[in-house]
């Protein structure tokens, strides 16, 4: 018993205000994490900056954007008019409309912050493709966001289908704006 105490005393290297300090070896696993992180840092820098083997964030992003642009089908006036006749399509569009569009265009499309969608006057064209493009690209100068990026093409097509069902319903609301659309 006394031997162990002796041994322990021998390990004490300093005493400050009664605080004893031993000098035990550093845990080996801890040294591995220290050296491991330094080695990793070294190779990470070489990979991304010295030799530029791997893509930095912006390059990786541009590649992904290009890959996505290579996909995607074509949207035509005929396709949109046809889709607007499908119940499922219109119902899906109505759901999206009620989430995102209703604030500015009103519950019945009668308009408030944005124009009335139920008359036959259209600021950016009343044909299906123009409506699709207006929703997709937005009208920055008028405060209409571009919905293509956040919603995706399918959702924009569905909203277009729903808007086409409202066209010409003449719900009383905001006064007509834009040009008369005649199919």
């Amino acid at each position, binding site marked *: 018993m006394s031997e162990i105490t002796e041994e322990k005393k021998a*390990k004490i*290297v*300093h005493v*400050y*205000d009664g*605080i*004893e*300090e*031993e*000098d*035990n*070896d*550093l*845990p080996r696993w*801890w040294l591995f*994490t220290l050296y491991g*992180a330094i080695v*990793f*840092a*070294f190779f*990470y*820098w*070489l990979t*991304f900056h*010295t*030799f*530029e083997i791997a893509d930095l*964030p*912006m390059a990786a*992003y*541009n590649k*992904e*954007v290009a890959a*996505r642009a290579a*996909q*995607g089908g074509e949207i035509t006036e005929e396709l949109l008019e046809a889709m607007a006749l499908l119940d499922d399509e219109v119902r899906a569009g109505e759901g999206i409309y009620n989430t995102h569009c209703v*604030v*500015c265009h009103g519950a019945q499309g009668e308009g408030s*912050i944005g*124009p009335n969608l139920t008359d036959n006057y259209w600021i950016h064209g009343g044909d299906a493709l123009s409506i699709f*493009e207006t929703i*997709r*690209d*937005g*009208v*920055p*100068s*008028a*405060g209409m*966001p*571009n919905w*293509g*990026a*956040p*919603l*995706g*093409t*399918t*959702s924009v097509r569905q909203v277009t289908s729903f808007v086409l069902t409202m066209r010409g319903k003449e719900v009383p609301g905001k006064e007509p704006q*834009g040009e008369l659309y005649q199919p």
Partner: protein
Amino acid sequence: METTRIQYNDGIVRKFMMASVAFGIVGMLAGAIIALQLAWPNANIAPYLTFGRLRPVHTNAVIFAFVGNMAFAGIYYSTQRLVKARLASDLLSNIHFWGWQLIIVAAAISLPLGYTQSKEYAELEWPIDIAIAVIWVVFAVNFFWTLKNRREKHLYVAIWFYIATILAVAMLHIVNALALPVSLGKSYSVFAGVQDALVQWWYGHNAVAFVLTTPILGIMYYYVPKAAERPVFSYRLSIIHFWSLVFIYIWAGPHHLLYTALPDWAQTLGMIFSLMLWAPSWGGMINGLLTLRGAWDKLRSDPVLKFFAVGITFYGMATFEGPLLSIKSVSGLAHYTDWIVAHVHGGALGWNGMMAAGMFYWLIPRLYGVPLKSRAMANFHFWIGTLGILLYVGALWTAGITQGLMWRAENEDGGLLYASFVETLVAILPMYWMRLIGGSLYLFGFVLLAWNLIATARSGKPTDGEIEVPVLPEAETTEKDRAGMRLLLAPQVWTALIGIGLIATGFFFEAIQSLILIIAGSLLLLVGFLILLIAREEGKPTFHAKLEGKAAPFTILTFIAVLIGGVVQILPTVIASPEAVASATNTPYTPLELEGRDVYVKEGCYTCHSQMIRPFVWETARYGAVSTPDDSIFDRPFQWGSRRIGPDLQRVGGRYNDVWHYQHMLDPREITPGSTMPSYPHLAKHRVNFDRTESKLRTMRTLGVPYTPEEIASAQESAMRDAKRIARGLEESIGIRICEMGSPSDDCDLREDSELVALIAYLQRIGKHRSPWLEEASAGETGAAPAAVEGEDAETSADAADAAEAGAEGDEAPGAAEAAESNEAAEPAKADDAGESEGAQEGEEN
């Protein structure tokens, strides 16, 4: 040897301790209130007690008032005993105490009033910043003077950490607070955009390091072995983890800016140094926990050790989580979410709060000469506090990861599954209630602590420690020789410095030169390490043992260690800035936009909204083109933000019309049901003082913003003209009643000279490189149709086609197309070629 009896200055320790407890409760209460506001927006009481103004009160109170005072108490108590000397000056000690408390009171008043620089944890305006610097110098003088009077030659590891704290905080605070005043309550940062972001997070991250970590590690090294009555585990470990910690920490700041417009090299440094920081941090944890070995049985009965054991464990957890979050891809998910908030509270509640409680429970019987009033209540505090942390952190981990995944979720054709931001907020609201419960439990625990401390103090009487010491301070005989300074020239020191210098230079060269420099530097470091090993002789003091005996060289070396990282990261960016301004396609804000930006800053919008779109397809799909350094080049301060409780605003300019913004600011829930944003109806009546606009522009010009003398001279006129136009536009569109510029009557819906009008002007400008108002003004001059608020009829068909085209590219390739366009649109638009610039502008903004 002649001896004398000295009495320690423990009165100052009692004062700092009680101030820490009082302000701790205030700070945590502010935290509970803002937690409630996030879950239930009606708890915002405009204008003074909104989330945006109270959040800095919470963070500053907890960091500087609670932990700051706790650290001062712990440092002053332990330092006197570790160096066997009374604090050098009672006067300086008292100035330090009362000065610090006055600063806290000034902060608690000025922040709700809206005086803010809106840089996180550095919000206080310039007069208070100067006071902080002065009081910090008082603290430093008092501390180092005490070291000079020491009767213990060698400095214990706790003192090393205190030295690092004093030096680093002074450096960080002074550099980050550099600003040019406009008036007593308003200043503009000398740094702009990317530089400001880099300096701010160099500061912000190291406020965590040198206010919340190093002083507390020093405190751990004193109080844990004291309370456990066990020897410290390893002296060698303390040397290695001290030097690696103070050197590496400083470099890690840019991990707050991964995927932002910060240059890639700085981002990578931030990430890899954070990973290298893992082991040094855990060195502290190991030395703390292994000091408790052999004392684990005491944990059952002694609440002090319970608090310490859990505190150190949370330190280990938080310092593992930190490097994890710094890995770029993890940051991509976690940044801007509540995961970060969970992380900092793991540190603040778990490490700082528990260490503070343990220290207070240990100190109070010694400072008042009676046992703790209620050990049972301290134990209860421990359990309720621990439960509170687990609820809090668990809730916000869940919230953060949930929201991060929802932001990036895609539908089948590449659109966003949760295209409406508010859906991702509503989803985590239950977690916000849970965090409120967890935080409140923790706060309740601290109320119990306060009661326990006060009851103990009342049952005893102030007791000051005393000790028998030699008459002469040890330092009198040791500090005068030159051997100390010669230590600075030892081969170990210069090989290390040159080695680090070579590696750092290597960061800025091309492949092969870079590789050679980095390898040469690393080899030199190895040589220095070998010299250290070879120079060790049995029975003779090592290099470090000699250094510990010399306070001045030790301090100088510590300062060099904390200086290097900042110099390497910040200097190149600052030097490059004038060229960047000269080549910017961006143009300075119009006077009204600048006033609106100041409203944005004043209301603390950055506490919930970022202005930084990262290069991810799901992020550009939601917000628009990736942010560039140019976007924020005139932003003093930068407003990139760190948390998205609401959506990013980098490209909000032109996204909605003025009517939308007007109604949204009056009642956000009318436009976005489920939003938790405070309502700001009072902004419609609060007046902007346009008399000050001119001096604001002049200050900006002094800082390097290219305003012309004519623009400055006509600033007030221009701001008032634009404000009138926005207000009149709103009147025409929705028939609200307007109060004229300067009118004494408030009997209307909106003042022309209101903060709301200025704010709308700014919101419509964010992310654009040219003011939309300038576009319209020049369009008017060239005879185009005047612009209505909704703007449809002002738009020529050519522009519409341009917009559609840019948008069509943008649909599949939202960010890339626009980023490319904004780079190409390099010519700053001139007033006379309005049509052309408008076209370019449309593409850019889309």
